[in-house]
């Protein structure tokens, strides 16, 4: 098990390195640079600025210096556009926000989704099943960029009970709409996967045996059906966790949360190379780690899996 973890982490290093190198060159291939502006800077001024940020160096040297600073000092450099701020500072500010409502969305999506799915499977072909399935499909059909406007129009403009955006120190009323917008479509998917998985398990031989020996339904479901039911759900939850953190771009922009997604998009548009790379590395590393945790969780859910 430990050897497995060590092996996976070792593979992660070249993976992230490749990601950085590819992003770095892609970024520099895009026309324009951080200091391309409507009024082109006089050559002397541009030279001063490029020297300040090391952009006058050859590309390989820039990449090497960048990697060196990241690995040795954990320093992602200064932002080229928000001149008072470093990338570390931008991540330290934005990531906790994205993480807060990302985690809440993840929690809401999994708890409600799994509960809906199980309820639907146990009461298969009853009104509860139909309600749960309809809810799941409706939720899945409402991606966050549709949910956002609907929520704001309803709760901010019409009812006037929730603020239309912002963060304001993370007060709960500012969290509700972003969390709903971000979680609904995943919630629908989770409900659907849980339901079909549970239905399949409930029809399998070992459950029939359990029933035959007279176990009460509650015990069958909780003790025997739950773990195998959740196996496909868990394999879906891993990527979902990464999605709610990285895919929060729309929610960040729409609800002006100040989260990292906002910086990610604007850094691409303004060619803020350092921020773009920094956030890419963060998201990349996060994906690798969460995938590893998902794989480890399999072993717990399915005794047949051993690393």
């Amino acid at each position: 098990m430990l050897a497995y973890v060590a092996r996976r982490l070792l593979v992660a290093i070249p993976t992230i390195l490749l990601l950085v190198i590819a992003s770095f060159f892609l970024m520099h291939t895009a026309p324009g640079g951080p200091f391309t502006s409507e009024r082109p800077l006089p050559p002397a001024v541009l030279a001063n600025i490029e020297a300040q940020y090391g952009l006058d160096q050859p590309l390989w040297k820039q990449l090497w210096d960048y990697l060196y600073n990241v690995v040795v000092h954990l320093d992602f450099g200064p932002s080229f556009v928000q001149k008072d701020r470093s990338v570390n500072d931008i991540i330290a500010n934005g990531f906790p926000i994205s993480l807060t409502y990302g985690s809440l969305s993840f929690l809401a999506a999994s708890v409600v989704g799994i509960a809906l799915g199980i309820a639907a499977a146990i009461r298969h072909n009853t009104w509860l099943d139909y309600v749960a399935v309809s809810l799941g499909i409706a939720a899945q059909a409402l991606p966050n960029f549709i949910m956002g406007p609907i929520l704001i129009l309803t709760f901010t403009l019409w009812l006037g009970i929730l603020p239309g955006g912002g963060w304001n120190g993370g007060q709960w009323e500012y969290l509700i709409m972003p969390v709903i917008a971000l979680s609904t479509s995943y919630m629908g998917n989770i409900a659907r996967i849980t339901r079909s998985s549970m239905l399949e398990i409930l029809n399998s031989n070992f459950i029939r045996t359990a029933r035959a020996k007279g176990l009460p339904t509650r015990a069958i479901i909780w003790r025997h059906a739950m773990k195998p039911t959740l196996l496909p759900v868990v394999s879906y939850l891993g990527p979902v966790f990464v999605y709610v953190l990285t895919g929060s771009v729309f929610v960040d922009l729409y609800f002006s949360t100040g989260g990292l997604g906002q910086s990610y998009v604007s850094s691409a548009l303004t060619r803020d190379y350092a921020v773009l790379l920094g956030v890419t590395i963060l998201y990349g590393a996060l994906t690798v780690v969460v995938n590893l945790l998902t794989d480890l969780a399999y072993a717990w859910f399915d005794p047949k899996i051993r690393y």
Partner: protein
Amino acid sequence: MKPIAKLAIAALLSGTALSGVQAATHPVTGQELAADQTFTYRLLDDVSSFDPQIVEDVDGANVVRDLFEGLMNQDEEGNLVPGVATGYELSDDKMTYTFTLRDTAVWSNGDPVVAGDFVYAWRRAADPATASPYQWFIDLMSLENASAVIAGDMTPDQLGVSAPDDHTLVVKLTTPLPYFPQMTTHSTTFPAPQKVIEEFGSEWTKPENLVSNGAYTLTEYMPGERIVRERNATYWDNENTILDKTVGLIINDENIALTRYLAGELDLTDVPAGQYPRLKEEHPDEAISFPRLCNYYYTFNLSDSGPEAFKNPMVREALSLAVDRKVIVENVMAGGQPEAYSFTPEAVAGFTPPSSAMVDMTQAERDAKAKELLAEAGYGADNPLSFEMVYNTSEAHEKIAVVLSQMWKQKLGVQATLANMEWKVFLEERGNQNFDMARGAWCGDYNEASTFLDLITTPSGYNDGKFSNAEYDQLIADAKTAEDTTPLYTRAEEIIAAETPVIPIYHYAGVYMMDSDVGNWPVDNVEQNWYSKNLYKLAE
């Protein structure tokens, strides 16, 4: 405690209490003021910096103008009024300005604001080590040795600015510059607290470290979300400041900002293109529109890489004549924007657009003449004119481009294909003359026609169409030192009208939704340089 001290404290307390009572009505207008003097507005994007010498965006400059105060300020009409300086004297050769600084100006940490703070700031702005994106502004101010300092050939202490004593600032220019005092309202020229910058380095603009000399101090900054500035009790004119707090909310999407405005979360936001008529009807007191110091145009590529057809002035004039500007301002923008027949907006101080044949014609006459000119130039059904027009991706730019291409197609049989590009790509392509015709727009850096007319001189870095006319260049150069610039600018606009290097489409309007309880918004300041200290909130 001695009785006299008690008395003094009592007087102080009653003074505070009194001013609290007085705050209920406006000292000049007598209007009833709101108890909560907080103004909340929308910013399009996060600011580039709070550092006066570094900041380069409009939203950032608006914040910095509250936090720091320069030599001169602007009033509601954009006129110069004293700031830290009480006034200035100009030498006979018009190349030396001597500013007198008030002795009541202090930094928010209690230190006096001295002439040396300006010297430090201006040297800092020019210093290559600071790498300020607004270094060029110091050059534009024509300060002695500015170019050499920026290029690194001289040290910053050789810049033409000095402080003979704490309250005198002497500025030496290389050439007379009539609008120099106007330039001291720009954030690049604001003073900087040397002690604080040296103590905290790049961290000095964090709210907990920032020391400023303006009417407000930075109290909260949540990047990408909000910027809060509150009354600075040490500001020299604090007793005449009414607004206690200004909150800037960063909301990228203008439609969301409008929704949040309508939900009562904002006092001021921009109106998205085309929505003004509806909002004006639904909220007549809140939807406002006024002229601004910006133009919108299409430029021809006149360089070698441009299409051969555009080398012919008749073709350029024909295309300009066929543009029905009325349709664009009334049906596309619909926000009270003026139609443009000159490159310089009419709103510019002291500028009157020259009358031209085109202005006096009806659109039908223009269309007829456009057909004639194009036929004369050899383009028609058997030899149709076709070209590509590029613009940066945006809903409003797209609408205008579509309308323009349709006008040309229907009236002249011209085939204009549209190409939109992401902003940085667009700048790169336009800057390298990889286009036939490209969108352009400019907002004046200061309220004088040269801020626009400079753009299309031969050496201008912004002249992406590569228009070059010796007479035009000479006129603009002469205007720098001329007593009366009017005839020069009039002639320059006449050359633009005759040569048509650009097609002016419309001039900007500030189109806002503003809560009717916001007092004294400077609608007459075409540069929209606003100061929170001049605003107030009326009781509902």
